[in-house]
């Protein structure tokens, strides 16, 4: 399925998820991927249909996969990790 909306989430929906949102946006630019909506929220908003791809910390990956396609990050500020995992998710 085409990825048009990405939802980054963490426990509080305030700090960590925003950090991931910034880095997802940056990575998409670096990868030359356009027209994707990126948002951040709390784990409460993670449900099937809420997004085409969920991005979270590695420890929350199991929760995210129940809702759909997901990426779990070990290092949320690492651009190499973000870019390689996004590439895989987009099938590039």
């Amino acid at each position, binding site marked *: 399925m085409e990825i048009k909306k990405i939802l980054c989430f963490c*426990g*509080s*929906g305030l700090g960590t998820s925003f*950090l991931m949102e910034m880095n997802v946006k940056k990575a998409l630019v670096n990868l030359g991927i356009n027209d994707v909506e990126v948002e951040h929220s709390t784990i409460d908003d993670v449900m099937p249909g809420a997004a085409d791809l969920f991005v979270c910390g590695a*420890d*929350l990956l199991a929760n995210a996969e129940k809702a759909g396609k997901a990426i779990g990050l070990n290092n949320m*500020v690492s*651009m190499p990790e973000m870019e390689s995992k996004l590439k895989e998710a987009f099938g590039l």
Partner: protein
Amino acid sequence: MDLLKKENVQILNRAEDWKDAIRKSVMPLENGGYVEPRYKEEIISNVEKMGSYIVIAPYIALPHARPEQGVIKSQIAVTLFKDAIEFENKDNPVRLFIVLAAADNNRHLEALVVISELLQDERIVQKILNAENEEELYEYFVSE
């Protein structure tokens, strides 16, 4: 970065466990009147409920809770522990605690941008982790 003051930067030897580390890391903000005493316990209870989402990178944690969980004024505190602290269900031990107190959902974004940029540079992260005194540690955060 105007959200970080030198008096809120500290280097400590060790903590008993991750909860003790969070309490110690939040203390400068509590003493300065930026957060209510319950803020540290709210962070701990969030982590217990929702997992170690505050561990954002190897050796680095970003403890924070929501504005309504006891924030009075937006501010950041930085604590570096000489001994690493283990989190439950996490492979990464933590030495650097960057505590965020955000009074509203937008006020702290600017600081987060700066922190994120800073932490993306692995050489700076190494320097931060090797800082020998508070002065040096503070400079890495504000000189960007």
